[in-house]
């Protein structure tokens, strides 16, 4: 008998290109919630015929009881790893939801959607494995939302990634957690906004600390902030390309 329940479902969407570990990222979330948590989860997926490079997305629904309708329609949280995916999905975000995106791959549209931009692919490159960018974003997801127990996700990562890569993946996950702590990112679920602790921001500006690189590359878009797209975008990119790389390399290793 399918269980009848009125529990509220949490919908999550992970989207990007094939080959970025999009499906795996959703799988890890679902596995953590079901096998290492006491919840039900249903993960669905859609991808193009190519195994790499094509558009790719997965939806995960997490609930305290049986998940009846299994497809994600209005996710509370989105993890986005390509501009195409952002364009396709960002308007589906639920009220009060947040988008966590790769800073170098996604240029968010103007508007008041809360977006946490994380230079995940770049951070992953510093770890020596570009493919763990998804796990860094998973760490950010875990720290910002707290929906799923951190240890559960760790266990789920350990048995979902190829043998021999567990360490680097756990490291990537920790990096995501650390990133949120250092930038002081907080999500106010009720109001659907993101707060960034300014004090912590200042601290990170002390020269020579690990935080410095993070604060420069972190761009947490505050609510209602309008950005002139071309100019600021270029500026940010330049900053990231020139000044940051040195310090980042030192700090992430």
């Amino acid at each position, binding site marked *: 008998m399918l269980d009848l329940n009125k529990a509220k479902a949490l919908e999550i969407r992970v989207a990007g290109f094939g080959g970025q570990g999009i499906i795996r990222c959703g799988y890890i979330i679902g596995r953590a919630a079901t096998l290492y948590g006491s919840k039900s989860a249903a993960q*669905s997926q859609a991808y193009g015929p190519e195994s790499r490079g094509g558009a790719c997305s997965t939806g995960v629904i997490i609930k305290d009881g049986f998940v*009846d309708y299994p497809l994600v329609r209005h996710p509370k949280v989105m993890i986005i790893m390509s501009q195409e995916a952002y364009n396709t999905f960002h308007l589906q975000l639920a009220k009060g939801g947040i988008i966590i995106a790769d800073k170098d791959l996604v240029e968010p549209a103007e508007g008041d959607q809360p977006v946490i931009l994380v230079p995940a692919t770049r951070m992953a490159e510093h770890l020596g494995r570009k493919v763990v960018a998804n796990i860094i974003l998973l760490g950010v997801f875990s720290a910002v939302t707290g929906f799923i127990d951190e240890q559960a996700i760790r266990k789920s990562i350990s048995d979902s990634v190829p043998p021999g890569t567990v360490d680097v993946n756990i490291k990537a996950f920790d990096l995501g957690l650390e990133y949120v702590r250092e930038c002081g990112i907080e999500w106010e679920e009720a109001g659907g906004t993101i707060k960034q602790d300014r004090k912590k921001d200042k601290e990170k500006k002390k020269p020579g600390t690990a935080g410095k690189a993070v604060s420069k590359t972190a761009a947490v878009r505050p609510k209602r902030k309008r950005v002139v797209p071309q100019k600021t975008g270029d500026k940010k990119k330049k900053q990231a390309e020139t000044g940051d790389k040195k310090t980042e390399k030192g700090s992430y290793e």
Partner: protein
Amino acid sequence: MAVSLLNNRGILTGSHFVNGDIACAEGAIAGGCRFFAGYPITPSTEIAERLARRFGQVGGKFLQMEDEIASITCILGASWAGQRVMTATSGPGFSLMMEGIGLAIMTETPCVIVDVQRAGPSTGLPTLVAQQDMMQVRWGSHGDYEIIAYCPATVQEMFDYTYKAFNMAEIYRVPVFIMADEVVGHLTEKLIIPSEEDLLLEHRKKPVVEPRGSYCPYEPDEDLVPPMAVAGEGYRIHVTGLTHDERGYPVIKEDAHQALVRRLVKKIRKNVNDIIEYEEYYIDDAEILVISYGISARSSLRAVNEAREEGIKAGMLRLITAWPFPEKRVRELARKVRAVIVPEINLGQMVREVERCVNTGIPVHSLTHAGGGIHRPLQILDRIREEAYHTAR
């Protein structure tokens, strides 16, 4: 992914987070399947992949055939050699299998056929969902017959009913179908493997007479199912798709045909109470009845839940066996409710069966979908609201 936690029979144990196709493959292994012949086709490919990998661990035989016609006839041969057999396909392959399915019915060969449905006609939408083979599974092969077809709605049911299908095929000597769909096949959910005591195997009846004695391969017992000797045991058997007598010899005569075809149909029909499975939700005081199955039942359940929250007395009948159809129960419910809604991902297939059974004059609404997606709960809820409004007294 490493397969761990196997018991001494090679059956997976414990809890897993896997997709429906993998659950189906594991259900087959738990159901004693050790022979698979197939031609991989989206969205059923993962079943073949999983079995190809797992059969090495449990001593099974996996054959990739040149097409689906070869696949179905290959498993029939293996069944006559004593194996519990399966093939898996999707719409286009299912169409090709129709001739072999008729042969399986006529020769009373136990086998399990999985159809992970995708949208047609023809190659249609290879990667997207539909429930468009529901009538094909019932009537697709020529001639009159009865089969058993399950419609799993969850990953857990993909395991449970694939396992069960093998027992039913052995008991009734009939092809048993798993009518899954792309969403259930590719959906990843928690699967809990039942304990070993709950995974018992039923075996086909063996002849009680000596091989050299008076064995008649098609002489039925009281339950209308004949005991089955298999190749290599010394019994003389003749397996033919032609109308045959109890000895298995072709007899091209009216009375032989009457006796044979009526028995093939009756062996299922007289046991419908043991075969038919369905579930009911909020049925006691229901005024608007939703009848659904497979993945559509999950959208329907949400809609019915929401209707109840709005104070509408909606209820649901979920078909687990589409065939045999729970005719008696639908007739009973038709006398209690004011309207029936049938959401399904086709342009109206099982609704015909519902209409046939609902003869009380109440409206029966077909809520159709051409395929490529599943009903949104709101679509079903809207129809429930409409019916509640129009039939209010």
